């Protein structure tokens, strides 16, 4: 019985750490996808500027308030625009950006198909 008690305590403690680790992972994932607006070429995660410190704190606070990853991005996009996100959302301003690689792949494929396969036949 005594061992069972210890076992339960260990399981609870282990789960708390796991929960915290998951939160930390999500926090890092979000801050790595946010651009530091005052330091060129650095993410919020990498930067130690005053702005980045505040955004890191904000992400932590929003996660504690049960905001989802998408809600945090949308909050920050509303404040600073699409520029703050490294991974821009699929909307009317970014259709070209997202669809261009697929378009190029299809055109390239068509050229290869036409030149090599049809000609060969």
């Amino acid at each position, binding site marked *: 019985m005594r061992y069972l008690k210890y076992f339960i305590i260990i399981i609870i403690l282990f789960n708390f750490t796991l929960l915290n680790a998951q939160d930390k992972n999500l926090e890092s994932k979000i801050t790595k996808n946010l*651009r530091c607006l005052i330091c060129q070429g650095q993410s919020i995660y990498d930067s130690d500027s005053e*702005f980045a410190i505040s955004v890191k*704190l*904000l992400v932590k*606070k929003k996660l504690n308030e049960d905001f989802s990853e998408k809600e945090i991005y949308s909050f920050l996009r509303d404040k600073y625009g699409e520029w*703050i996100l490294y991974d821009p959302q699929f909307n009317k301003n970014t259709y070209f950006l997202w669809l261009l690689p697929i378009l190029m792949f299809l055109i390239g494929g068509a050229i290869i198909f036409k030149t090599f396969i049809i000609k060969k036949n």
Partner: protein
Amino acid sequence: MKIRIYHVMIIIFFLTLFFIFYKGLKNSNIYTPNLSIKKDIPIFEAKLFDSDNFISSQKIFEENKFYIMNIWASWCAPCRVEHPFLLELNNQKNIEIIGINYKDKIENAKKFLKEFKSPYELIISDKDGLISIEWGAYGVPETFLIHNGKILKKYVGPLNINSLSEIKRLIK
């Protein structure tokens, strides 16, 4: 003939792509905020600068009145440059200046106000920078012109003679 049209179309496609990317090279890769935004002011609760009481944003801003919301800190050198312009704006009758003291030590901020005079009707404290994020600010100083619960204009960096005359014109 068919093959010729096909080749011409491919060349036009790649030339268009080249033109778009070439133009893209000239775009600035520095964040440029939208300065003339008619956004609603954010709703927040903040600690008052010189007391432990909290105030909500709805109690600060009244309808049909112009406000200047200025983010400042005693450690910020450009804030000293813009201070005379804020003092001059304070002489205008139809505008109130609200300060957000950004990540500052209260003693230093008080010394700053004693030395340069306070243009602020009310100051709120932003110790961790979260209120400034609510305003979409990313540094100090930043200034917002507010009317009827909307941000009419945003000034990034210190105010100058041009921004001062623009504000005076807008609040007339």
